[in-house]
C-alpha cells in the first residue's frame, strides 16, 4: 500500500464501515468494528510512515483534479492527527463494546455514528480546500449530535438539540466566510488562497466570520454554553470521543486557516482577542468545574478550561521572533495531543467511577479510594496531565508555551499558564478529597469490567508518558508546515 493509497483508504474505510454497520444486523455491528479499526489503524500507520520518509502525500479522489474533484493532502500535522484519532478512538471503541451491553437500543446506532464521526475527522485532517473542510465539519457535527442523543432521555435530547443549533449556526457562519473568499479570489484551495490572499476588507470579514463559527464549534468562552450538557450528559464513550477529538477538529481548521492566511492578514488585535478569550475560558471553565456536583459535568467544564490554552497560540505566535513562534506551535500541538489523551482517559475513568458508585454525584464517591483504586488511579494520572505536572504531556506542553512567552517577553500569558495549572489542580483534588473520605454510608461498590479499567488506564498512561517521548510527535507534526524547516 503506497502512501497515496493509504491516504484514500483512511477516509474510505471508516465511510464504508459506517454504511456496512448500518446494513449489518445490530448484533454484528460490535464485531464488525474490530477489522475496521485494524484497517483504519493500518492505513494511518502506513500514511504516517510515508509522510515521515517522503514528505507530504496527495491523492486526487477518483482521478479528478481540483477544483471539480476533491483533493486529499496529508502533511505531518494531518498524518499525526489521524494517528491520534486511532490512538484515542480505538480504546474508546473497546470501552463502548463492553459498556453498551447494558444499552441495547443505543448500541445499534452507536457503531454507524462512530464510523461517520471517524470518516468526518479523517476528512477534515486531510482536506485541501476550505469547502471540504465545511463538508467534514457538517458531517462531524451531525454524527456528534446523533451520538449525544443516543441516551434518549429528555436531558440528552435537550443537550443534543442545543448542540445541533450551535453547530448549525457555527457552520453557516463558516460557509458565509467561504462564499466571500470564493467571491474574492475564485479559489477554495488552501494553498491557492495562501498565494493570492491580500489584506483587504472582504477577506478580513470572511476570516472573522469563519473564526467566529469555528470558535462557536470549539466552545471558546463565552460561546461554550452548549458543551457541558452535551459532553457531560452523553454516554461515557461518547463523552470521551467528543471531548478528546471532535472539538479539536474545529480548532484544527482554525490552525490551518492561520497557517495558510493568518500571519499576513489577521490583525494582531484579533490574535490578542482570541488569546484573551482563551484565558477567560481557562479561569471560568476551572471555576465552573470546581463548582459542579456531578462528576461528568466537572470533567466537561474542565474541557472548556483546557480548550482555552489552545487559543493562547494566536497571540504567542503573531508578531514575535520566529524562534518564539516555533515554540508556541510545538507547545500548542503538544497541548492538543496530550489533552486529547488525558481527557479521553478522564471521561472513561469517570464513567468507571460512576459505574462503581452507582451514582454520578461527586459526594457519592466517599470511600472509593479503598475499593476502586484502579479507576481512581486512571482518573488521577489524567489529572496529572491536565494540571501540567512533570513528566506528563501536559507539563511538556506548558513548558514549551512558557518558553515561547519568555522568548517574546509577553508576561501576561505567563500568568495565565501558571495560574491556570493551579486552577485545574483545585477541581481535580476536589474529586480526590471526596474519594479519600471514609464514608460511613457504604462499604460495597460494583466492580467495573476489567476491559473498561484497561481502556481508561491505557489512555491515562499514554497521556503521562507522552511527556517523556514528546519529541517524536512534535517532530512528526512539524513536517510539511511552515514550521517544518530547520
Amino acid at each position: 500500500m503506497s502512501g497515496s493509497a493509504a491516504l484514500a483508504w483512511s477516509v474510505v474505510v471508516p465511510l464504508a464501515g459506517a454504511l456496512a454497520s448500518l446494513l449489518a444486523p445490530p448484533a454484528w455491528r460490535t464485531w464488525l468494528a474490530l477489522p475496521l479499526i485494524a484497517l483504519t489503524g493500518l492505513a494511518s500507520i502506513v500514511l504516517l510512515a510515508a509522510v515521515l520518509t517522503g514528505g507530504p502525500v496527495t491523492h486526487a479522489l477518483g482521478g479528478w483534479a481540483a477544483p471539480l474533484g476533491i483533493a486529499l493532502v496529508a502533511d505531518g500535522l494531518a498524518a499525526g492527527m489521524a494517528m491520534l484519532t486511532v490512538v484515542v478512538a480505538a480504546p474508546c471503541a473497546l470501552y463502548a463494546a463492553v459498556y453498551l451491553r447494558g444499552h441495547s437500543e443505543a448500541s445499534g446506532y452507536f457503531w454507524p455514528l462512530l464510523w461517520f464521526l471517524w470518516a468526518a475527522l479523517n476528512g477534515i485532517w486531510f482536506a485541501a480546500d476550505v469547502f471540504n473542510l465545511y463538508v467534514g465539519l457538517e458531517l462531524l457535527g451531525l454524527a456528534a449530535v446523533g451520538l449525544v442523543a443516543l441516551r434518549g432521555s429528555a436531558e440528552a435530547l435537550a443537550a443534543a438539540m442545543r448542540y445541533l443549533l450551535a453547530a448549525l449556526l457555527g457552520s453557516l457562519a463558516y460557509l458565509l466566510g467561504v462564499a466571500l473568499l470564493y467571491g474574492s479570489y475564485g479559489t477554495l484551495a488552501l494553498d491557492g488562497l495562501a498565494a493570492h490572499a491580500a489584506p483587504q476588507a472582504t477577506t478580513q470579514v470572511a476570516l472573522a466570520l469563519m473564526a467566529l463559527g469555528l470558535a462557536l464549534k470549539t466552545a471558546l468562552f463565552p460561546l461554550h454554553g452548549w458543551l457541558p450538557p452535551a459532553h457531560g450528559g452523553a454516554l461515557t464513550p461518547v463523552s470521551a470521543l467528543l471531548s478528546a477529538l471532535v472539538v479539536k477538529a474545529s480548532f484544527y481548521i482554525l490552525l490551518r486557516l492561520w497557517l495558510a492566511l493568518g500571519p499576513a492578514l489577521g490583525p494582531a488585535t484579533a490574535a490578542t482577542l482570541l488569546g484573551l478569550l482563551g484565558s477567560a475560558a481557562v479561569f471560568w471553565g476551572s471555576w465552573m468545574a470546581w463548582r459542579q456536583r456531578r462528576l461528568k459535568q466537572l470533567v466537561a467544564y474542565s474541557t472548556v478550561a483546557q480548550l482555552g490554552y489552545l487559543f493562547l497560540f494566536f497571540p504567542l505566535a503573531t508578531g514575535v521572533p520566529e524562534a518564539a513562534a516555533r515554540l508556541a506551535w510545538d507547545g500548542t500541538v503538544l497541548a492538543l495531543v496530550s489533552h486529547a489523551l488525558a481527557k479521553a482517559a478522564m471521561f472513561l475513568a469517570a464513567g468507571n467511577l460512576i459505574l462503581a458508585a452507582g451514582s454520578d454525584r461527586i459526594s457519592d464517591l466517599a470511600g472509593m479510594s479503598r475499593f476502586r483504586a484502579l479507576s481512581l488511579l486512571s482518573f488521577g494520572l489524567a489529572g496529572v496531565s491536565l494540571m501540567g505536572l512533570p513528566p506528563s504531556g501536559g507539563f511538556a506542553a506548558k513548558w514549551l508555551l512558557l518558553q515561547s512567552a519568555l522568548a517574546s517577553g509577553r508576561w501576561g500569558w505567563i500568568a495565565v499558564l501558571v495560574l491556570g495549572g493551579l486552577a485545574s489542580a483545585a477541581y481535580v483534588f476536589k474529586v480526590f478529597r471526596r474519594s479519600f473520605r471514609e464514608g460511613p454510608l457504604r462499604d460495597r461498590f460494583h466492580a467495573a469490567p476489567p476491559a473498561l479499567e484497561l481502556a481508561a488506564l491505557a489512555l491515562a498512561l499514554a497521556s503521562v508518558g507522552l511527556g517523556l517521548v514528546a519529541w517524536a510527535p512534535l517532530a512528526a507534526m512539524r513536517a510539511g508546515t511552515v514550521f517544518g524547516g530547520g
Partner: protein
Amino acid sequence: MNGAMLFPWVGIVLCAMGLFAFIVHRHLLRRLLAFNVMGSGTFLVLVGLAQDGRGVDPVPQALVLTGIVVAVASTALALVIFRRWYRVSGHARLPEDV
C-alpha cells in the same frame, strides 16, 4: 450598485433576517426555519458573488448543491430530535426557555 451585485446583497439581507429570527425566537421550529432562511441567504451569496460578467461558474453551483444536501440532512435530524424531545417533555422550547 450594478445588477450583478443584487443577488449577494439579497443573500446578506436574508442571512441577517434569519440570524435575527434565530436569536429572537424561542420556539424550536421557528428557530429551525430561521436557520433555513439563513442557509438560503448564504447559498445566494455563494452563487451571486461569482457571477460578475465572466459567464457561469460551475464550481459555486456544485458547492450550493452540496450545501443544500447538507442543509436538508441537518433539518431532518433537527426535526427527529425535536419530535422526540416534544414527546418526552411536552415542550416545544429548550428547558432554559420554557
